[in-house]
């Protein structure tokens, strides 16, 4: 593991620091709000929240532009936000409204925004590995210097597509960064039970590619590891595997009683190990942002999420005719 605590010599511009903090807070706020709305019975469907893992999506996406692409998971809201998706459109999608990013046809597990390089949340565990290779292949073939990032969970890395995707990326030297979000559990099953390796990065050697393990609660560590990997990919040197050790604050999906978690771990991840609190402290200590600037971000995000909810509530459902659009219907 490269670093389990902040690498203090990561130099962030103020602008970048601001962006990163804002995105983290957006994710947290958005997810907390979705949690409430779901509890109230307002939101339909399966919802998997990203709260607690913000440092991963944001630390990685800090290195990407709109032409770079990411593949995501069932737990995709954080990736969407970090990649620049519009909060209104996201929330409306989760509501199933026609103003959603996918016209309400996708829902929480299928938010996509190709203009932002967000290739889609994915309800199929392991679905992203081959897809990330595909967008990377496009980049390589067209000789752009764009990269693809594949976010995936500790559970997903036991799926066959992990193996096939990474091997393919490795032999074709595709510009992919494979980012494991090791939150310790796949549903109610611990990583340590389901996976024969001690660390996900142990598997990098099977593909002869670099593996970096970092504290996924430490956004600077994630940022630094991702920088290395993204640059390597842009240089045409092939894929990297990054393991981010993290934790999800909520259950697997909304409704999960989480009996498999220990009380202590739950508590500490909400306090001393909380990625946002840690980053906030860092920003203030290093005087990258002043207290009032931080608070301003927090306030503006709250307003933005309020607005997203309002937007969604006021938006209409799709028309019945939408049932038959966006697909070739053969009868």
């Amino acid at each position, binding site marked *: 593991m490269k670093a389990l605590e902040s690498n203090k010599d990561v130099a962030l511009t103020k602008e970048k620091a601001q962006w990163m903090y804002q995105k983290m807070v957006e994710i947290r706020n958005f997810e907390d709000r979705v949690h409430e709305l779901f509890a109230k019975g307002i939101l*339909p*469907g*399966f919802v998997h929240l990203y709260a607690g893992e913000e440092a991963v999506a944001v630390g990685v996406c800090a290195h990407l532009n709109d032409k770079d692409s990411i593949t995501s998971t069932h737990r995709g809201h954080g990736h969407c936000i970090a990649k620049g998706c519009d909060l209104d459109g996201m929330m409306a999608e989760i509501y*199933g*409204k*026609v103003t*959603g990013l*996918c*016209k*309400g*046809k*996708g*829902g*929480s*597990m*299928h938010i996509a925004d190709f203009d932002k390089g967000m290739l889609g949340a*994915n*309800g*199929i*565990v*392991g679905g992203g590995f081959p897809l990330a290779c595909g967008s990377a292949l496009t980049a390589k073939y067209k000789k752009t210097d764009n990269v693809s990032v594949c976010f995936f969970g500790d*559970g*997903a890395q*036991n*799926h*066959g597509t992990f193996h096939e995707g990474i091997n393919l990326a490795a032999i074709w030297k595709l510009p992919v960064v494979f980012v494991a979000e090791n939150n310790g559990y*796949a*549903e*109610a*099953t*611990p990583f*340590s*039970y*389901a*996976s024969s390796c001690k660390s996900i990065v142990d598997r990098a050697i099977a593909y002869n590619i670099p593996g970096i393990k970092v504290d996924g609660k430490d956004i600077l560590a994630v940022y630094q590891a991702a920088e290395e990997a993204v640059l390597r990919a842009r240089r045409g040197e092939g894929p990297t595997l990054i393991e981010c050790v993290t934790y999800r604050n909520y259950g697997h999906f909304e409704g999960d009683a989480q*009996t*498999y978690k*220990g009380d202590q771990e739950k508590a500490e991840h909400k306090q001393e190990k909380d990625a946002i609190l840690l980053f906030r402290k860092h920003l203030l200590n290093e005087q990258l942002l002043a207290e009032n600037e931080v608070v301003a971000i927090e306030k503006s995000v709250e307003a933005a999420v309020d607005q997203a909810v309002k937007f969604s509530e006021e938006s209409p*459902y*799709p028309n*019945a005719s*939408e*049932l*038959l659009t966006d*697909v070739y*219907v*053969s*009868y």
Partner: protein
Amino acid sequence: MTRKLSMSGAINEAMKLAMRKDENVILMGEDVAGGAQVDHLQDEDAWGGVLGVTKGLVQEFGRERILDTPITEAGYMGAAMAAASTGLRPIAELMFNDFIGSCLDEVLNQGAKFRYMFGGKAQVPVTIRTMHGAGFRAAAQHSQSLYALFTAIPGVKVVVPSTPYEAKGLLLAAIEDNDPVIFFEDKTLYNMTGDVPEGYYTIPIGKADIKREGSDVTVVAIGKQVHTALEAAEQLSQKGIEIEVVDPRSLSPLDEEAILSSVEKTNRLIVIDEANPRCSIATDIAALVADKGFDHLDAPIKRITAPHTPVPFSPALEDIYLPKAERVVKVVSELLGTPLEV
């Protein structure tokens, strides 16, 4: 003794009874117990299945028989096939039938073909339990009804129960069966309750059930759509139209006899199937009757199905995606030449 039980309770009970009866029966799947190797959950489950259907099994049978698997559908499904052909009688849970994309080979080219391809040398007594169906706001990748895909595969049997009573008896029959059986559970029916006898009983795979007798139109309905048909039957009955609701219960083998003799009586057929319409069980049953029941038909064979699109997420769209009683009423009326007053 019969008491009220939910569909998921009936399925749970069937597994318990099967495991008590035959120690070669094991259960494997993702989080069928949950919390594997979590210190405070050694003899307990964290989940007992994603929607709790296998709850409590690990307490009784222990973690040697209730096996949590990694997210490796191909891995454990293939293991189930070979475990079955070497002496066990596994129940393998494929959480959502949509995930067959990750392990089709293990069914299509392995388990389903062993017996034939090996000249009768192998038998593969495996039961795959899997969730299907729309209406749960679970979107395109968690709402499909893929039983036609399996019905098309020679060598496997396909069961789609519509009531708790039948779920229990058919699941026990599936577990006893020496061929691979895919057992479909509509997730939106889990909470439906019904009378379920205590104790061990089986319902033969391959026998349809007439859920309601009638003489005007035969309505064959699959799984949850049996209830749509019954709802329509009530409404129609008030107008003096009596439809016969046939529940095939298993799609492979299909009780052709039952369907054909109902059509012989009613001379009209409608099939209700919430799956996509092309190359479906609805077309299969229609084709059967268009061949062997042709001489008894007085009207075109109608199919009431989902449209040929993925399942949309938005409640507004998903609600119109599924067959509805009103639509059945309308089609029946048209078929009988008694269009509804609007």
